[in-house]
């Protein structure tokens, strides 16, 4: 299968000598839903910026669907749609004009551009706002506008740099649904996000980057298998004043008063329920706690910080 994105030995050194990328390699398969995770300043946006031609690379190779950005930049760009982290449209222009103008930059004639703009503005719930200047939109609408603009030329690879930053949970969920549908229809998606719950919910493969180096590049499943424990949230019939003491299990109450129990890999849940039964605590529902990825992520980044300090790398 063709790779949607191939990055080899990518290096970026800024004018002030700061080495943002220290020779990273990354392959994203066609049709994948891929997350690039890392703390602030890790090199995520620099990597995506180079792929999208917004940042000049210092060394290395980048290919988009086989088109090298050094030799076939135009072909590479035709396959790419970009949703940046910050709003980057003319705030005075109308929503419809912003989307059709972007299509025009890709050589799409106005009639076809208008049809495509209508399709995506409708799908993203912005059709009623098509004649509104962008500055009048809410933050969530502006994010959706950038997604419509990125899709108007029907790219095969969609890159989203923190697409749901500052978006409320309801809208975030609807954007997830939209992106999952795009991916199902064949669009390869790469996203960076600070919401690890988002990466866990959407992505099949994940790379973790820190200090300009890729720490891990693997499937979500494999990554999560590294967890030595799993966390369950238990809702009880009667509210608890304090977490019960359970032999062999660590438990505490969360902010909403639900019982949270850590279960080690291979440990039987039966033992936990037997003890709860003896304590007269009736469990009415149970769910796995999301953000398992967060735990792994924090652990990896902390380990890398320790290694970086021992190597003498600048943070």
């Amino acid at each position, binding site marked *: 299968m063709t790779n949607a994105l191939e990055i080899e030995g990518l290096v970026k050194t*800024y004018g002030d000598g700061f080495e943002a990328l220290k020779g990273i390699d990354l392959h994203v398969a066609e049709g994948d839903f891929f997350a690039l995770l890392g703390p602030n300043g890790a090199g995520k946006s*620099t990597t995506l*910026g180079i792929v*999208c*031609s*917004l*940042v*000049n690379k210092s060394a290395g190779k980048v290919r988009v669907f086989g088109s090298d950005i050094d030799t076939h*930049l*135009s*072909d590479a*760009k*035709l396959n*790419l749609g*970009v949703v*940046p982290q*910050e*709003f*980057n*449209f*003319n*705030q*005075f222009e109308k929503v419809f*004009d912003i989307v059709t*103008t*972007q299509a*025009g*930059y*890709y*050589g*799409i*004639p106005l009639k076809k551009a208008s049809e495509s703009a209508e399709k995506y503005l409708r799908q993203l719930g912005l059709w009623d706002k098509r004649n509104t200047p962008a500055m009048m939109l809410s933050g969530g609408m502006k994010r959706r506008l950038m997604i419509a*603009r990125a899709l108007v030329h029907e790219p095969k690879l969609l890159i989203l740099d923190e697409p749901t930053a500052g978006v409320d949970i309801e809208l975030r969920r609807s954007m997830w649904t939209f992106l999952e549908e795009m991916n199902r229809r064949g669009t390869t998606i790469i996203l960076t996000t600070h919401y690890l719950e988002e990466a866990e919910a959407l992505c099949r493969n994940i790379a973790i980057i820190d200090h300009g180096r890729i720490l891990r590049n693997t499937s979500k499943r494999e990554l999560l298998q590294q967890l030595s424990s799993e966390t369950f949230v238990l809702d009880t019939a009667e509210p608890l004043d304090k977490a019960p003491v359970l032999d062999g299990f660590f438990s505490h109450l969360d902010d909403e008063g639900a019982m949270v129990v850590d279960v080690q890999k291979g440990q039987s849940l039966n033992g936990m329920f037997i003890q709860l039964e003896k304590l007269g605590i009736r469990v009415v529902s149970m769910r796995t706690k999301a953000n398992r990825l967060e735990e792994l992520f924090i652990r990896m980044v902390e380990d890398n910080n320790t290694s970086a300090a021992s190597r003498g790398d600048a943070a």
Partner: protein
Amino acid sequence: MRTDAMLTAYKTIVTREIRRFTRIWPQTLLPPAVTMTLYFIIFGNLIGSRIGVMDGFDYMSFIVPGLIMMAVITSSYSNVVSSFFSMKFQRSIEELLVSPVPNWIILAGYVTGGMSRGLGIGLIVTLLSLGFTDLSIHHLPMVILTVFLTSALFSLGGFINAMLATKFDDISIVPTFILTPLTYLGGVFYSIDMLPGFWQGVSMINPILYMVNAFRYGILGVSDVNPYIALAMIVVFITILSAVSLRMLARGKGIRH
């Protein structure tokens, strides 16, 4: 990118530019019309009648070509510098950078946008001048060539200024401290024959003098310099500034990290 796709991209940039300056017409089209009307009234009618004849023409007829050229120069320059810099400032330039539009199409689109405003203003000022004097054209091809090439040249100048600018102050420094003095000292209001020998020599290194005089030759048939040398100079400058602009775009000067 295919040729038809490049043509669509070029039309998109030009349409966007024209839409921009027509949307804000009270800032872009009205001021030069008002300013030039005041020039015609004050310098042409009130003061001009006391100055008398210059190069064989009444003063109003003498200054009209220069004033049209002045409006074309400043409008072409300021359109590109403000439009491109505000795209940089709002980061909407990234819309173009991520797209497959070749750099030369980006440059051609912005220059055409600048020329559209510059030539539009030139037409407005010309029509206004007809209320004050009779304009007869001595050499139409010279008029058209000079005004088109000058407008293109200053659009390119505005583009380079915008590429180099990092803050709003930077886009007003060149028009205020370089362009305006050169225009005023470029023979718009006087013939350099009136100057002492030394200052005539100094004036000859002012490129705007050549453009104003080539245009005046096209309209009145009089010029302080050879109009064909002036045209050749403009072409040379356009070639140099185009090369510089394309080089800056390729390197991403001020627009890519």
